[in-house]
């Protein structure tokens, strides 16, 4: 199996390492780098649990090869500092919390480029992030609140 050297930043810090060609980003983050805030749910790109930001865009880490992020800036929930987090707590944006990292990374990516995103745009954007616990109402309230208080 071929090994590839990749260089990228993870939450602002430079990373330089060698990975096998088929290493998935989600495994690189969780198993090799110990960043377990990013979760693995469906493993096929439909649940959004593994959402991380790649150069600011939300992406499913279970669908990306580690080699594909060479040169990119990666942000995970461990590098997040956003009013969204407190809003998720006060508005009931999580219960079990397994989807929360992904929800936060997706919502943060939107609000960074569109601080005044409409309710409908927010709903549309979060469609790729499943939550089995909250029924989404608390997630909506939390994102709306973080947007409104900006």
């Amino acid at each position, binding site marked *: 199996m071929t090994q590839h050297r990749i260089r990228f930043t993870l939450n602002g810090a430079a990373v330089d390492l060698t990975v096998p060609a088929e290493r998935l980003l989600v495994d690189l983050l969780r198993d090799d780098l110990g960043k377990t805030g990013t979760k693995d749910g469906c493993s096929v790109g439909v649940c959004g649990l593994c959402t991380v930001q790649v150069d600011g865009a939300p992406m499913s880490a279970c669908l990306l090869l580690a080699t594909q992020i060479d040169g990119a800036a990666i942000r995970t929930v461990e590098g997040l500092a956003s009013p969204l987090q407190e809003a998720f707590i*006060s508005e009931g944006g999580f219960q*079990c919390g397994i989807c929360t990292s992904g929800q936060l990374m997706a919502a943060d990516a939107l609000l960074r480029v569109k601080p005044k995103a409409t309710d409908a745009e927010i709903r549309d954007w979060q469609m790729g992030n499943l*939550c089995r616990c909250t029924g989404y109402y608390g997630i909506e309230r939390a994102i709306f609140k973080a947007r409104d208080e900006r």
Partner: protein
Amino acid sequence: MTGPTILDRPERRLDGDEKTTGAAKYTADLEVPGALQAAFVRSPYPHARIVSVDTARARSLAGVRAVLTGADVRGQRLGRRLQDWPVLCWDRVLFVGDRVAAVAADTREIADDAVRLISVEYEELSPLLDMDEALRPDAPVLHPDGASYRFLEGRGERPAVPHPNHQGHVLETHGDVDAAFARAARTFEHEFATPRIHQAALEPRAAVVWVEGDRVRVVSTNKAPFNLRDQMAATLGLSKDRIVVDNGTIGGDFGGKGLSTDEFVLYHLAKATGRPVRVVTRYADELTTTNPRHASRIRLRTGVDADGRIVAHESHALFDGGAYAAGKPTARLLVEGGVETLEGYRVPAARHEAATVYTNQVPGGHMRAPGQPQNVFASESHLDLIARELGITPLELRRRNVARPGDPTTTGEPWHGPDLAALLDRAALDIDADRPRPGGRGIGFALGVRHVGRGSTTISLRLGRDGTIEARTGVGDQGGGQHTLIQRIVAATLGVDPVTVRVRRLSTEGPQDPGIGGSRVTPVHGGAALAAAQALKEKLGGRSVAEAAKALGTGEEIVVSAKFDATASDHGACAHAIEVAVDVDTGAVRVLAAVVAVDVGQVINPVGLRGQLEGGFVYGLGMALFEDLALEDGRVRAANLGDYKLPTIADVPPLRIVHLSDGHGVGPYGARSAGELVNPGVPAAVANAVQDACGSRVHTLPITAERVWNALPAPTRRPSGPVRS
């Protein structure tokens, strides 16, 4: 009783920081040095005899540390009550996904490769894929040795069943049912069906097991660690005190995580290798091999008098239990919430027959209000059909029949609990039931009644010199907010700021705990928290917490412990009103608005409670409109989560929750349980609204556009629609 005003303080969940920063450690996140990865060989057939298993090639693969087959664990069966599920199959496989061999290897990839190198020769047997077929007098018996299976607790005896392919069976009667039917002015009979659906907690099961001296250590996503410990002890022939079960943070449960099946073989692999062995279930395996909600077929018959008042009722409910009954923790091996149809109504005479049936399908288990969503879909749809036949509105029929205090209910017990008529009226008011609606729009109602759980647990409190209190409990927090519930009750009772109260979860080395489930946390754990706080208050003898803390010397603390037994019987209740629009050209249903009027007594965790009610509503909506874990020839068709449609944020309608309470809940400060209250009624309310909108009656869930279109009354149906039935 109204709670102290401190319960009105805003709630800030104890797990908020760790869950919004990624710091919370779920079982799959735990670092376990030296851990091996396990993988399983699974049956591709729904029913087959194992002729031979060849593991030689797998064993010689570099990085493989152990390979086990059924022959190595012959005779060992697991289960929550009836232990009928082989740890690894040794003679026959009974469903697609049944395990026949296990591997422990250095990496997951090697374990998977090894699994592919194991060849199993099967002799296919004809499968029983249908409940009626399974109950024929001459049907092959799926568990011929059933009489020898271990039955946990009690006298260790399993209730007798009329057919060997029954898992559980019950016939309950109250009143003279036949005489009451004979007096009825009119009698109605309808049949309903619901598919298997999956709990779909987004965190897949995970576990790690290792042997440390004479201790077996287990970290598991199981939501009732003491029960898993007891099950492992029974299956593996170990004494309970040798096994210690702990949890990580649990990423959702919804009932499914009461059953664990991997930990047993992980123990054998750990013993064989001397290393920790872990497994994180792939989501595809979650969907196809773990214990979904039972598919059901329910036939109801009800007699009414000339005024439309129910005089007699009977039900026949069949639940497809699949290959094993292991997922059911109940003594009768039924999904108990499915037995008593027409709950919440005055039913002077009733007969209920319910059974769970062995088939060669994926084994059924418990899921949020087990049995109840099937039952309520049938019962509340049946009521609407009766109302329409009688020419009165569904709301009026409910008003005439809803149970008032002291009325005989369908179980024969007199009703006591929330004011059901008031809940219905409020839901009707808030959905604006009297407003005329344009064609294609309609409203539907359903009632939801759920018992408040019982049981016992112990919670201890330690007051330290710094004035903070640590509460210790054996219950985990799967997302329901139970630790915050304990915190707030302790704080309220002692009159301290909630932030000064921490909650620590203990493993099975701590005091016995029943775990999460059965709508039990608020009354049982909440009750224990209240008892412990009262005990501490008493011990302080009039001093405030702060004064008592100041008087403590270095290293000193005040410790109290309270065991609490919740025995009182009570119900939570809710009334649903749902408005839909149906496109009669396609049958597509859109839910426009929903109201849930609830009585859950005193509110303790406003944020957590709201989440349970809202989340419960959408959980029910998924069952109503989308979810169907369909099987074909015994194989679950959904190969991954993309094939099993869960509600997304785009699917949820505006929802209004209205609280009404008589304030008489039996839980702490008058609280009632909430987690399993809302989801059961949603499918019927949607089905009833659909009929109101377009005349189409759907008897089978989910309510797909195709089913709605096919059931449209002839004049409405346009020939351009789909033609498949």
